[in-house]
């Protein structure tokens, strides 16, 4: 009995490693779903995974895929753990007729671990709204796409938002801003850009670290109360967010002055904080709500047939779910762009999809066709600029739902771009990479 179990297990493991030839001729586009469904970050992971997979299934059901090429994929549990993320990547990269199309690692740590591997294997690594900010310089990072808005851009948009609230950027002079951050690579990313902005606009910034996971913040909020800042930027993740909001209430700090990043601005972040979260503001590169045509199509073509990823149907249209839909819209549009050049109705390789991503244009007209006007921002990616968007909306929690309180606010590329280029150049020097010449790219 024991022996059969073991041999079965070995056979399965072997099959996972060596398979991939089985469906060599099929017209399929293989997209791995390497997300996480367990662990402390599962609330985010399940929502995004659900949205991302549902959208691709909706395309398969509604349009028969992209020009007849259907999307397939397997799920792989990364547990938000670097080692497991790498294992999932290695497992999935050679499956399907053309190998993995692209990967959404959905973890800044895993993104870092995959930068070398993806570049070597010619598989694009998409870190939509997270990951390494300086990878926006596509000359140094040909296969890495921190799309829509990187952390630095988001941060400049936040300062702009504060400026408009105060009635002009010159009013920021003399203001006090606290940057309350998760003590990790993710949390620390924005410190340099905030320092640069503080010098430029003449505000005073204090960086306060919260040790991971962030469920203990009394000392930090005591310090904030002593500083009594005009704004607190909350750069949290997971359990740190509701804790911060509750601690703010206890410290008597108005939540209308707490500004969260987009990994602090989902339903899962505010509902546990209860009443304390009322008035709390957070950034977002997508909005919540299920009354967009694209979400309605998912409900009609996937859920109405008894399929779909979300067990809790009320989460369809939540911030994280919609973010997953945005992820997959980019995946699908990149494949479509690649097909337009390399052959319609053919499965695309990672290298071809990389071209598709680099020439991706999602304008207002295209957004209308996708049924996503106002759902996400227009996007235009290039060899030089792997970010493509750079705009942020702000939303406020009213106790029941997120209300959008601003238009798309653009980032300040005059600050971000030189920093991105300097940081990418340092990376290139360390690694001995010669940056590409974008004028020679076709």
């Amino acid at each position, binding site marked *: 009995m024991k022996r059969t179990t073991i041999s079965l297990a070995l056979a399965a493991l072997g099959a996972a490693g060596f398979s991939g030839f089985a469906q060599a001729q099929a017209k399929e586009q293989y997209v791995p779903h390497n997300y996480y469904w367990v662990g402390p970050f599962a609330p985010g992971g399940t929502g995004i995974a659900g949205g991302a997979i549902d959208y691709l299934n909706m395309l398969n059901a509604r349009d028969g895929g992209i020009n007849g090429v259907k999307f397939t994929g397997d*799920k792989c549990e990364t547990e938000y753990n670097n080692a497991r993320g790498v294992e999932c990547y290695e497992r999935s990269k050679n499956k399907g007729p053309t190998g993995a199309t692209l990967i959404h690692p959905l973890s800044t740590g895993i993104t870092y671990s995959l930068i070398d591997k993806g570049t070597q294997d010619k598989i694009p690594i998409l870190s939509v709204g997270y990951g390494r900010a300086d990878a926006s310089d596509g000359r140094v990072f040909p296969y890495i796409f921190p799309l829509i808005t990187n952390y630095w851009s988001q941060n400049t948009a936040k300062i702009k938002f504060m400026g408009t609230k105060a009635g002009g950027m010159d009013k920021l002079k003399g203001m006090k801003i606290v940057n309350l951050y998760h003590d990790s690579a993710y949390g620390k*990313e924005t410190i340099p850009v905030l320092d640069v902005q503080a010098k430029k606009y003449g505000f005073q910034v204090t960086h306060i670290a919260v040790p991971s996971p962030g469920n203990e913040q009394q000392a930090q909020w005591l310090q904030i109360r002593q500083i009594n800042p005009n704004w607190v930027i909350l750069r949290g993740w997971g359990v740190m967010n509701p804790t911060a909001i509750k601690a703010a209430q206890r410290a008597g700090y108005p939540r209308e002055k707490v500004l969260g990043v987009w990994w602090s601005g989902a339903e899962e972040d505010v509902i546990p904080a209860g009443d304390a979260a009322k008035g709390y503001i957070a950034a977002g590169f997508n909005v919540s709500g299920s009354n967009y045509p694209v979400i309605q199509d998912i409900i009609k073509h996937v859920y109405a047939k008894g399929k779909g990823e979300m067990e809790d149907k009320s989460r369809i249209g939540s911030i994280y779910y919609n973010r997953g839909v945005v992820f997959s819209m980019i995946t699908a549009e990149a494949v479509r762009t690649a097909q337009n050049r390399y052959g319609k109705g053919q499965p695309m390789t990672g290298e071809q999809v990389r071209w598709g991503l680099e020439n991706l244009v999602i304008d207002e007209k295209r957004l209308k066709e996708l049924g996503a006007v106002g759902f996400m921002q227009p996007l235009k990616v290039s060899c030089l600029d792997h970010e493509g968007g750079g705009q942020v909306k702000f939303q406020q929690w009213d106790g029941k739902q997120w209300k959008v309180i601003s238009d798309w606010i653009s980032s300040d590329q005059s600050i971000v771009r030189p920093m991105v280029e300097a940081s990418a150049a340092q990376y290139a020097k360390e690694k001995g990479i010669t940056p590409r010449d974008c004028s020679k790219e076709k």
Partner: protein
Amino acid sequence: MLYREAGQFRSTYGEDQQIFPIRQDRIAIGLLLVVAFAVVPLVANQYWFAAILTPFLIFGLAALGLNILTGYAGQLSLGTAAFMAVGAFMAYNFELRIPGMPILVSFVLAGLCAAAVGIVFGLPSLRIKGFYLAVATLACQFFVLWALQRFGWFTNYSSSGVITAQKVEIFGYVFESAADKYLLTLAIVAVMALAAKNLMRSETGRAFMAVRDMDVAASVIGIPMMKTKLLAFAISSFYCGVAGALYAFCYLGTVEPEAFNLDLSFRILFMIIIGGVGSILGSFIGAAFITLLPILLSVLFGTVSHLTGFEIPHAWLSNIELIVFGALIVFFLIVEPHGLARLWQIAKEKLRLWPFPH
């Protein structure tokens, strides 16, 4: 029948004292090395190299390091991941700051840095024991990560505090493919495991075990407490440091300090508890159990639900994996509290009598 030492006579001290006194053991180890060095590179593919074998070897080495300290010298430590972090970040810095630095020398120097940190944080072991010492080594875990995140020098002032390992080049040959990196890791791990095996048979090793079994008695018979305990910390940290450097250079390529958190220290501690405390082999069995079993379960469950067409929501599947994994740990600890290495030892003893047990 196959595994019997009858007829193997030892006529010299050398023969009596060799690492594997039984001929069959020598053959088995030789075969294992031949398979690992020659056969595996021919048959395995990139998935096996990059996702299964290399991490297994690296975690095995880290577990071996902890086993020297905890299993042989009896000093409980929760700072393993911190020593690995020191190794990873210092190897990066040696490569970065000294032009033309040979990579293997960086690894050794990184290991020595980890050893130095180990000695400093091993000092409390002179006064406190057991769980209290574990708490003291916790300080090391937090202090090292704090220092790596706070002082920009360690990460070459990278804005996100992340380092990217440089190219691995030895005598002009660049180790780039997954198979190359596997072979490099294997060579280092094999040499260090052999060194550990030898060390434990030496006077130093016996002193470690004497301290572990009863430190008062050990000091009475003339074993210097301070030297022995600090040496145990130094050697153990050296192993962990080299494992950390391999983790950065041969496995992930890019690492953040957060990757070496307390969670990793606990995982390595579980590896030696499950594999076998005070056993070289146990370190590797434990590493295999903790790193590979979850992957095996995930593949197995995926295949089963694929073949049978039995659809379960993936979130359930992920949770069931964790439950089964936990249950297996409990099962093995009940069946064999001394670890899986002990099971292997029992099997060997039975094999000696087979097929005529008396």
